[in-house]
């Protein structure tokens, strides 16, 4: 990590704060915004931990893991269990839990889902996926699997999503540790206390990132956002226009053909009727009409080309 971390701008600091629990757990210094000294020892340690914890040994590995966290993460299985359980009545939820063999991971996970499903927001334990995403970005940049710039770009994107998913740092933090607990599949009191300890200083310490940063910080510059949105709209309109024009042309062409066909037919009919009239006049008229029709047909052909 560059010494830039000490002087991050607020939006990036906000993004960084999403990963704060892991930074705290690993003992990095909050006062330094969790900056790590780029010593050989640290580099080696982090490389090893990326390998052991995630199987990451290359940029590709890192990107695959990030993609997984973004698209699926562990929140997905929480959602599945939650959809199932919350559809049942509360009495039936308890009955269902009774049928599961006790002290198994599944049983404990369902207990946790039951406890949290109506207390965490719709995003559920996504916080845990987000937090680890940020951590991987920073660690990946530290050891050089991705550039600093890339890591901050990625973090900015996930920050926006995280901000929409939760309403405050406390809620985010709770969802984070709940996610970790769910993944461990344990309802041990000791583990719960341990997890609470992970967020202790973030929650209690007045100088912690979570207490300093406003959850509702404007993460995206409004002007920029508007411009970007406008640009998108303009592009979209342009595309639409092209499409519309094309359609109109086609429609016109169709109409013309139809109209002409009708005309031709009408004329043909008229000419029949006319033929029933005195032959001389009729013949002449018919001829004229024939010629007119022919001309129009030729014109139509020309236009259509």
């Amino acid at each position, binding site marked *: 990590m560059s010494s830039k971390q000490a002087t991050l701008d607020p939006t990036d600091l906000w993004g960084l704060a999403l990963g704060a629990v892991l930074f705290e757990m690993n003992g990095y210094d909050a006062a330094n915004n969790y900056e790590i000294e780029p010593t050989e020892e640290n580099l080696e340690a982090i490389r090893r931990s990326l390998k052991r914890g995630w199987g990451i040994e290359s940029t590709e590995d890192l990107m695959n893991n990030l993609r997984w966290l973004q698209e699926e993460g562990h929140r997905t299985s929480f*959602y*599945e269990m939650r*959809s*199932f359980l*919350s*559809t*049942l*009545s*509360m*009495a*039936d939820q308890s*009955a*269902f839990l*009774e*049928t599961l063999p*006790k*002290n*198994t*991971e599944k049983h404990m996970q369902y*207990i*946790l889902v039951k*406890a*949290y499903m*109506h*207390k*965490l927001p*719709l995003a559920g334990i996504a916080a845990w996926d987000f937090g680890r995403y940020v951590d991987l970005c920073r660690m990946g940049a530290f050891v050089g699997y991705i550039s600093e710039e890339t890591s901050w770009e990625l973090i900015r994107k996930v920050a926006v999503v995280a901000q929409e998913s939760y309403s405050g740092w*406390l809620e985010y*933090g*709770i969802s984070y*540790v*709940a996610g970790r*607990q769910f993944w*461990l599949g*344990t*309802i*041990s*009191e*000791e*583990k*719960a*206390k341990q*997890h*609470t300890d992970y*967020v*202790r200083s973030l*929650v*209690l310490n007045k100088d912690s990132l979570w207490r300093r940063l406003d959850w509702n910080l404007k993460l995206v510059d409004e002007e920029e956002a508007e411009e970007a949105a406008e640009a998108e709209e303009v592009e979209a309109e342009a595309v639409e226009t092209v499409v519309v024009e094309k359609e109109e042309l086609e429609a016109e062409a169709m109409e013309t053909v139809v109209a002409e066909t009708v005309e031709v037919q009408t004329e043909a009919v008229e000419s029949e009727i006319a033929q029933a009239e005195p032959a001389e006049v009729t013949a002449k008229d018919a001829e004229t009409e024939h010629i007119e029709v022919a001309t129009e047909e030729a014109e139509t052909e020309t236009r259509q080309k």
Partner: protein
Amino acid sequence: MNSWEFLGIEPTSDQGAIKRAYARLLKTYHPEDDPEGFQRLREAYEHALREAKFLQEAAASGDAAGSVFVLDPEEEAAPAAEAVWTGVREQGPREGEALEAGVPEQAGERLASRSFSAGKEPATPEELAEHFISQVTVLYADFPSRIDREKWVALLEKEEYWQLEVKQRTNKEMLTFLMEKYHLPRQIWRLLNDYFFWTDQEMELSQEFPENFIRFVINQIKKPWELRYDFLKKDEDSDYEYDDFIDCREHAFRAMLDNELEEAEKYLAIASNMFTEDPDLLRMIGHFYLRKDDLENAFHAFYRLTEVLPEEIDGYIHRANILRKIGKYEEAQEDYQHVLSLSPDNELALSGLARCYVSLGKLTEARAVLKRILVQCPYDIDVQVRLLALNGLLADQLQEELQEAPDDHERRFCLASVCFDLERYEECVESLDRIQRAIPLTVDMELLWGRALIKQEQTEEGLAHLDKALELARQAGDSEWAILLERGTTYVESNQYEAAIEDLTAAMELMPNHPEILHQLAEAYRCQKEYKRCVELSDQAISLNPTRWIYYSTRGLAHYWLNHYKESRDDHQIVINHEYNFSGAWHRKAYSHFRLGEYDRAIEGFHESERWGDNELSFYFIAICHFKLGDYENALGAIEYYKESHENDPDAYLVMGDVYRGMGDEEQAREVYCSGAAQFPDNQDLVKMAVYSLLKENAQTRAIPYLKQLLLGEDYREWAATSLLNISIQQGEWEEAVAIADNFRNVVPKEQWDPTLLFYAGYVHYRLERYQIAALYLEQAYRLKADGDTCSYLSMVYFDLGRMEEAAAFAKKALEAVPGNAEYQRRYEGIVSQSKKGLFGLFRKKQSSQALWPSSLPFVWHQELEEVPDIHYWQGEE
């Protein structure tokens, strides 16, 4: 139109087909809606059944008239048929008599009476089965009856239906019926299952019926949840079908389970157009809107739910959550309180209430509620973290308030308690100290002080305060068990087990079914090595609260030390399910697997134990496990690894040698045993194995020093002595041998020697011409074991002693023992001929027997150890 046309099927003897047709048409000719149509249907059905029977009988009897023909009641019946059906026809429906609208039960009964009132013979199983199904049909057709358990019970309990033959038929018929008509509440499914035992026949039934249908049936019986039938009603002006509603609701349910919201919306809408007061539907609608983040509509749905079913908590809880989210805290509070009145410990309500309190600024109340939740759900991190944040807030708030009002002792006590929660023990103690200066402390204050001191590891001072707390409680007649539990636990943690047992037993008497008390007492007993008592108490604690892993750890340990390896294994499994990094638990589990012969699991466990806690012994055991599985390669790897870090452990050598021996590499085994024995001469097993492998290779001289080492010990000294004598004899070192024998006699009296040893001793003395002593040894040997060699050499000795008669006698005994032995023969003949020399022999210097008849070395074998295990390992733990 005749019956078959009406039913829309071809004439057939297949009753199932008729029934299915009838069932199909019930939809069209519903008894309530179209009573006349229903009556016609009923009659067609009955008629078709009768005909089917006739057709069957005709076919069976091989009647020429067995060709299918249709009996039309409007036509004149053929005389033969008439005879058969007469009775029935007379009883046929009378003109103008119609079934009353909407009373299908009576119709059923009348039909029943029709069948039986002819005064015919008792009904056959077939008829009974038919009758049963028709009853079922009628019952099912009327929705209120369909969901009325009593009516079904009345039907199922009729004795006639319990006959085996009847049941066999009705079983199939019933399932066939259910394939079309399956909208039943769960309790009816279960009732039917009690009668038909479908859940026991799943496999057989899947052969005859579509597999997914049978699965459906089993599921209806077994599932722990249900969408209820109890609340379905139809007003006069509504025209939906119950079954359609039920189907829609079920579709919506499945969509909601999978979070297919579009699909769910569709079916929820259709269903709610039919009927708006079904609580299960309303609940699903509410949750649908919650998932769409549409609080307003969700609110309406849950509101309705509370009106429709006020005794269920679901509506109130979710309504309250919504109210809270939109800031209506007072109203939310009311709802939460209402839920608690119905379900006093409901965590969701308590959580919600706490959050309301926080929003309303009632911080101390909120804290109390959160702590209450943690008693039941200590794993709830949402509560733990909120409590943490709340305590932080409260600490600041209280401190501010106390600036203004320093003598508010209640507040200060609250602050002390909050500080304790925040692990700020010094501040906690400070506050209490301050209070103490102003007023006498209460029980709770002393208790808190004690606990804070104990947390700070000032155990003695802490205990003093607990003592005070107890004293105060006694004086006030207050409950003491909580204090006794606290003090008892502290005693356990500070290794004062007797005091702990005293306190905890007293606590248990005051509060008999408290799992924590039972557990701590179990711990105390365990530490006192009273393992049985520990197990008893742990069993109780676990039955009261099966979710605390520490209880299983305590019990598992006790089982472990009692060598109850199955129980130890199972208990420690639960521990590691909860605490995957508990190295000790892994080790004990692994060792239990090991003792149970489950070597694969043992290996896994030992690896995990080592991974999480640097367990010293892991690789030692891993090696042995691999050995037991015949995997010598891995065994070697493991024991090598172990040996590297345990140079001072003779067992490392022992096992390594055993592994080489198992691999067939005797040379390496010998190397290892010998180097080990050289390093650890006091380790009997190691030395023994060194000897064993040396002797195997006939390296007797090398073995001698080790054998002498074994003489110093107890386990193998006899064997060592025997082997040493053997070697000396082979080498002709008689003096040496005698020395060994004499020395050994000092350690183990001759009376306790085994015959081989005695024999050797006798033999060497014989070779040294110490015949008296030789005789003593050999005689004793003889008394214990009269084998050929003993007898023969005894005879020599007697010869040399001049006791000719005995010499001859024993020489003869030798031959009797081993007839045909050339040496014995020679000696015997020799003795006999010498004796005959009589007086002359007295004067001539006699030649010794050895000179006359030299012995071959009688024994070139090496003494086998009684028992050489293929691998040595500890049977017990230190």
